[in-house]
């Protein structure tokens, strides 16, 4: 028992950044509750949590990527492709077990493709994944043939919409994924190497870290998590539309940056990402309910990204902040 406690020491530990995110979430909830009578209902809370499932899973992978100094702007469409695969498997014979496997497998394969271009091909991650984003978008259109994939059998939904000991399955899977990623990051050489690469790839290579292997694996992990996210997507909506995942990559990047993971690499916070996802979804849902058109959502997300990074950059210039950082 003691060993387990030691192993899990600090798994949900929160610093100033995480606490202020939590406060921001609560503040947003209070403000929206006052502003809209439809906001503070149990149904709406369930909606917000439901909408966060995919982003939480993808956000965990994006945290690893950004901490490593990488990025993947194609991740939302990767989820779309995995969802199409799941939909096809489900539509063929309704076998939910095969469908459960399809998502992570397709995700892992596409992660390999991305890693081959970005890691083995030594292409900057932003440019490589932007190119792949174009390719994947065409693939989604061609695979769907201009129509939605709809009316999928309910077998997968029945399997994943259940509860185990009163806890919904998605929550269980998210906690499991969180623990797995946290353990890999904080308790294995992999995590140490990943952060070292984020700090300085050159120094990491010189000190004998298998940079290529670590970077490759991280893209594949991100792909697998995205495949799992796709499984929940299909189980919930039972259809796949043409525009699936078009803003997911931006949302994931915003959540990770909100959470305090440094885009310059070397520093990351998984609990921060979780809170960042919740804050983002609370804001998006609340703004919609107080009557802001959904067209403004990408603007809000973009402003959040630049605002947070800009605020950090400016506040870092004040000696007081540096002193506090040094003491913390």
């Amino acid at each position: 028992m003691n060993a387990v406690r030691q192993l899990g020491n600090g798994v949900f530990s929160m610093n100033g950044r995480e606490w202020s995110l939590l406060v921001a979430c609560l503040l947003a909830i209070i403000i929206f509750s006052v502003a809209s009578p439809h906001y503070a209902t149990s149904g709406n809370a369930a909606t917000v949590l439901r909408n966060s499932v995919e982003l939480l899973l993808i956000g965990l992978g994006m945290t690893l990527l950004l901490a490593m100094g990488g990025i993947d702007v194609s991740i939302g469409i990767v989820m779309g492709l995995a969802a199409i695969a799941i939909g096809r498997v489900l539509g063929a014979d309704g076998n939910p077990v095969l469908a459960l496997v399809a998502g992570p497998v397709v995700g892992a394969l596409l992660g390999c493709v991305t890693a081959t271009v970005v890691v083995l091909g030594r292409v900057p991650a932003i440019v490589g994944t932007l190119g792949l984003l174009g390719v994947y978008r065409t693939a989604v259109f061609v695979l769907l043939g201009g129509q939605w994939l709809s009316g999928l059998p309910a077998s997968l939904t029945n399997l994943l919409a259940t509860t185990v000991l009163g806890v919904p399955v998605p929550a269980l899977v998210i906690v499991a994924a969180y623990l797995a990623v946290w353990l890999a990051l904080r308790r294995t050489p992999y995590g140490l190497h990943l952060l070292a690469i984020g700090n300085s790839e050159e120094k990491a290579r010189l000190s004998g870290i298998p940079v290529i292997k670590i970077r490759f694996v991280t893209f594949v992990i991100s792909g697998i998590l995205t495949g799992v996210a796709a499984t929940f997507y299909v189980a919930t909506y039972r259809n796949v539309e043409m525009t699936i995942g078009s803003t997911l990559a931006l949302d994931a990047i915003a959540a990770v940056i909100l959470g305090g993971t440094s885009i310059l690499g070397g520093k990351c916070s998984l609990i921060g990402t979780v809170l960042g996802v919740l804050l983002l979804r609370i804001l998006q849902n609340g703004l919609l309910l107080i009557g802001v058109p959904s067209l403004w959502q990408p603007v809000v997300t973009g402003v959040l990204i630049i605002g947070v990074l800009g605020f950090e950059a400016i506040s870092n210039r004040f000696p007081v902040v540096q002193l506090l950082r040094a003491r913390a």
Partner: protein
Amino acid sequence: MKTLRNLQGPALTLTLLCGLWLIVILGLLVLKPSVYNLGTVTTILQFSTILALVGLGQGLVILAGGSGIDLSVGGTVSLSAIVGMLGVKLGLPPVLLPVVCILAGAMLGALNGWLVNGLALLPFIATLGTFFVYSGTALAITGGAAQAGVPSWLLLWGRGVAMGIPVPFLTLAIPCFALAGLLLLSTAWGRWIYAMGFNERSARLVGIPVDRVRFILYSLSGALAGAAGLVSLAWLGSGRPNIGQNLELESLTAAMLGGIAITGGRGGVGGVFAAVLLLVTLKTGLLQLNINTVWQVGIVGGLLVFVLLADRLSQRWRS
């Protein structure tokens, strides 16, 4: 050896691009001979104008190094066109429309420059953020509706054709490229851009005003995107809030295909010009062959990945 290789670079790129272009043309000729007339040339150049202006800005930003990139160009094109049209609607004299579009673009670009220089944010993340802010704002303030009311004298310029060449291409795209080529090849500024792209540290040490040059280049990229927005107004006759869609991808592909190294310091604007013509010829050809437009983004994206991988592979072979 290294200097020799560098000298051969641009010529090699241009030869390869011309070869590819001939293949595309010949392929089209075999598949659909009826395409060949002056009208097609005009269409291709008309479509090229916007991409040429945006690709030029993108190319210059990347050339100056510091992992420079401008992902917001598409959003800047849309937003500056919309700002111009809304300005006219709010009572601005229509004569000022060109000035407003280009100025709006320059200011949006200057914001990028400040984020990258003043706040030292990574270019790709700063411009990714502003991309969504700009393109989202263009869509949200119009509700997605096209803004009509372009003055007729502007349409005359935008739709005019002289000797088979569209007037905007003749009066805007070609002079911009000529000026940029002159700037790069025969002014101190051009040398500075190459120097800071090649090795920023050394460039700083020898006293090149790296920050100022970079800020101006981001503003210039914005101004060129604003000019592209103006061209879209003058050509289409209305301000479309999604006119800049996919331009970040296409301009990047044009710059990479044109032989500009993603790390900066290598390449020139002639290659970008040729790459723009190649890309638009390819897209027009696909359109003529009745291939669904959804293939375009995939082909452009695939080309981008291919070019980058080919560049790496060729570097490995040569060394």
